[in-house]
Structure formats: C-alpha cells, structure tokens
C-alpha cells in the first residue's frame, strides 16, 4: 500500500483487511492518485485512475440526462473472475473516487459495506485544507518526484 496523504493509510488498511480487495485506488475526481494498493507499475495506476475518473464522469452525465439529481452511488463491472467497484464520495478536500478490484474471495456486498466505512473514515480523518501555495517551475518537478516516490517507492 502506498499513500500520498498519511491520514488515509489507516482507513485504507482496514478496508483492505476487511474487504479482501485485490487492487485499490483512491483518487481525486480529476484523476490525481491519493493512495494505491496492489498495483506494481506506475503506468497501470495512471491508466486505471484516468479510466475510472472518466467512467464516473460519464455516469454522472448520464444521471443528469435521465434526471437523477443525486447521481449513481456506485458503478460495478462484474467479470468472470474479478469485479470492479467505482464510487465517489465527498471529503473536506473535495470529491474523491475509489476504484476497487475484487475477486472471488470477496463480493460486491462486502466491498459496498466496507467502502462506505472507508469513505466515512476518510471524511472524519481529513485535516483542514492548507492554503494553496504558488507552484514555481523549479519546485514543480521536485514535488512531482516526491509524489511519485510516495506512491511507487524509489524510482
């Protein structure tokens, strides 16, 4: 498990333990990864984050089209051996998305149950948002490197 925000680690570890999820991504609605578990290649994380955020954006638009103002709580794709759970939740840091891949050792019901707890725990644990700093060109690359190191270890 790799996390960009340390306060996400404990709720995520509990979620992984209880749900038996194989892969998990927590990201912003723009697709920026906050935490990941199970992915070994950064390119896979980036693809999954972009695709997951895209799917949820699409379903949000579909909800608006069919006049479902609250939107859809979750999107589930069930395959033969694995399923994917996608769901957004509000945090003090904005709208975040969880993408969970689960196998036959888990179920949609278990992921739904423990994902709701994960979202509630993240909402409760989120510290107040720090003031936005200007990102200077010389600091941008360093910050990006730090973020990637946090998510994937040493490069």
């Amino acid at each position, binding site marked *: 498990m790799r996390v960009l925000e340390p306060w996400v680690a404990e709720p995520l570890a509990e979620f992984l333990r209880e749900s038996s999820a194989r892969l998990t991504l927590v990201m912003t609605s723009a697709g920026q990864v906050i935490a990941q578990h199970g992915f070994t290649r950064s390119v896979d994380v980036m693809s999954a984050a972009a695709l997951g955020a895209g799917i949820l954006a699409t379903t949000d638009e579909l909800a608006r089209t069919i006049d479902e103002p609250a939107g859809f709580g979750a999107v589930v794709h*069930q395959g033969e051996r694995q399923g994917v759970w996608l769901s957004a939740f509000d945090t003090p840091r904005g709208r975040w998305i969880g993408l969970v891949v689960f196998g036959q050792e*888990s*179920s*949609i*019901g*278990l992921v*739904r*149950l423990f994902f709701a707890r994960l979202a509630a725990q993240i909402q409760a644990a989120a510290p107040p948002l720090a003031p936005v700093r200007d990102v200077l060109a010389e600091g941008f690359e360093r910050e990006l490197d730090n973020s990637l190191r946090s998510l994937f270890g040493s490069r």
Partner: protein
Amino acid sequence: MTIDQWHAALREVTGVTGVLGALIVSAEDGLVVAETAMEELATADVAALAAALVMRVARCTSAMDAGLPQTAYLVGDRGALLAVAGPAPLWLVAVARNDGELGRLRLLMRDFADVLR
C-alpha cells in the same frame, strides 16, 4: 416461486416472534434479492456479511469432504442469524433476537428453502 410468493414467505418468517428480518441473499455477490425487515436492521450489511459467512462455510465443508452446506446457524449474546440454502446461489437468511421462537423459525425456514429449491 414468483417474487410475490417470495415476499409472502419472507413476511411469514418475519411474523415469528423475535424475528427482526428475513432476506433472500445472493451468496455470490452478497446482495439482497428480496427482503422483509424492521427498519433498524441494516439488511444490505447483513446480506454482505451472511454471504461471506456461507461462502466460508462452503469452503470449510468442501475441505471436510462433507458436501455443500445446507444451513448455517450463528448465535450471539443478543441475537441469532439463521441461513438456509435455497437454489444456488440463493440463501434464505433470518435475523432474530435470542428470546424469539428460534425453534419454530428453523422449521419454517427449512420448509421455505425446500419450496424455493
């Protein structure tokens, strides 16, 4: 059995003294297929956990070479959960208080599971 008959059966189970709710659960995905329950019972949570329980029981009986499980009976300090296998992957699940008519509940659920099959 039709959905209406399922609901009638679930209502009868819920009518047993001490029963808080009865559900038909898909063990494969842990979701509620049909339910009749009191408001305070978190049926979706019960379905997810009951499905996880019966799937583990199935692994256990398989390892024992005892075939597929037919019932799972779990008793806590204050309540009990009774699960009876229906047509795969469905299970009939009831949650009851400990002071309820658990014997009658068991018999009734076994009858319904036979009809469901």
